[in-house]
């Protein structure tokens, strides 16, 4: 880790020993348009992807709390997509969302607009969001556990008082699962900042990274390109270190603000 910090102050291309250049890499970063593009793309993913996926996970988990029997089958079905190797899943979605592919075909039949998905810079990231939704199973499982943990007395009391479903959700369910939301938020944010494989594959592989006009150039991908395609390892190290700091700051912010909105049932400390 500290080695990375050291490398970030050098110019290093593997062939010759690292050359100390001080803050050059960092200054370059500030002026590098692709760097900022990668930041924007990644932040987009964090801001839109994480909350939406959490909401979807909670929704699906809630669906699972309803049926009385056969829940196991449904749960397995919702969970299996997470077992699919990321590469295969991404390839599958790139195919499915192909302009001539099944999804657009169905949309056409319904007279709905047919986006070009991964061929269109405006729709490539939403395409990845869909892929993310498909794989929400593992998050859903922990929310399911959280939902089932809500004390039955609270629900019974709500029934007695005749509280409507939305009120019940807002004042009982949400606070009770807020620790799980917190966990999912933190891990989701940390993971999203490191997003790599899906963006790599959806771009069409090594030769066309970033796909339609850099719309899929995420931070991790640009770092990879700089470090391992152009062999600017010092620059890549600088980017890595910045990423590390950003993630730490975000995590700390999340933890600090969590005191206000997370409710721990069993008491905390």
């Amino acid at each position, binding site marked *: 880790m500290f080695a990375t910090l050291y490398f970030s102050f050098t110019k290093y291309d593997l062939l010759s020993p690292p050359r100390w250049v001080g803050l050059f890499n960092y200054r370059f970063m500030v002026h590098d348009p692709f760097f900022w593009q990668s930041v924007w793309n990644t932040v987009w993913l964090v801001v839109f992807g994480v909350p939406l996926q959490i909401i979807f996970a909670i929704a699906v988990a809630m669906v699972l709390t309803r049926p009385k029997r056969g829940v196991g089958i449904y749960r397995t079905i919702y969970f299996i997509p997470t077992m699919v190797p990321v590469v295969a899943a991404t390839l*599958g979605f790139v195919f499915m969302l192909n302009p001539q592919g099944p999804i657009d075909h169905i949309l056409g039949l319904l007279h709905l607009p047919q986006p070009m998905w991964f061929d269109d810079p405006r729709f490539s990231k939403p395409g990845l969001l869909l892929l993310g939704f498909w794989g929400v199973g593992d998050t859903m499982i922990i929310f399911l556990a959280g939902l089932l943990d809500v004390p039955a007395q609270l629900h019974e009391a709500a029934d007695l008082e005749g509280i409507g479903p939305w009120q019940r959700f807002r004042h009982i369910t949400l606070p009770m699962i807020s620790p799980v939301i917190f966990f999912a938020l933190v891990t989701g944010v940390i993971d999203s900042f*490191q997003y790599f494989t899906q963006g790599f594959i959806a771009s069409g592989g090594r030769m066309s990274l970033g796909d339609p006009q850099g719309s899929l150039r995420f931070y991790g991908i640009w770092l990879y390109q700089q470090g391992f395609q152009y062999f600017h390892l010092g620059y890549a190290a600088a980017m890595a270190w910045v990423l590390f700091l950003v993630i730490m700051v975000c995590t700390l912010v999340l933890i600090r603000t969590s005191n206000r909105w997370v409710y721990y049932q069993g008491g905390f400390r």
Partner: protein
Amino acid sequence: MPPSVRRRRLLISVGNHSLAIAVAVVFITPFVFILFTALMASSQVLTGRFWPHPFEWRNFADAFSYAPLWSYTSNTVVYAVLSTIGTVASCIPVAYAFSRMHWRGRQVVFLIMLSTLMLPSQVTIVPLYTIFVRLGWIGSLKPLIVPAFFGDAFTIFLLRQFFLTIPEELTDAARVDGAGEFQIMTRVVMPLAKSGIMAVALFQFLYAWNDFFGPLLYTGNNPKIWTLAVGLGEYTTLHRSVLWNLQMAASVLFTLPVIVLFFFTQKVFIKGVTLTGVKG
């Protein structure tokens, strides 16, 4: 039970199940599309026809000539199996030390180890890559396999939690009987922790099987040693005219062992996933 109540209960149940089924359909649909495409002739692939007309089972065989799938598969198997062995072999003793042996600084070291879990992978790859270059291991599977023999924080954490559920009295009794630590570990703790160990082995196997970034980084320039993940990903780069049906077929083959493994080991898996809830 009055019939009106019974009827109401039935309607609610039907409603719940319909909802669950609707959601299930959403989740299954991509599988269906992928599988069907894998079975189509290439002429039919991007047309509007949903049902594969001749069922081209030979696509699965053709996928092997389209790209060196056998080579990719064997590389993936080597990576997955060896790294699993390495992980299990190295993490069990460490987890044992963290849970059943008492030594000064145990907590501190454990916390330090845990904090490494929070590091984004990108932070360590530059120096790691450099080390592997110096060692001449780039272009082989060694950078992926050898570190597995040195332990991995997540696995150690999980195993430690699991070992902690084994009553201290058992290990104490064995100690009183004069058993050495190693014997206690192998004869007492390991048999009791079998399901935890299996879960961990399963996790590692799956991780290696699905791993893309690692093999890309260390073997990216040497197609001979590519794993399935990298090989499939590079289909699109190497063959500009993508044969979707074969690509989907290959993806299905890539996914199949994982699904099969999942069904056989479901119980183990779920138990492992909920393990971190065990009080430490």
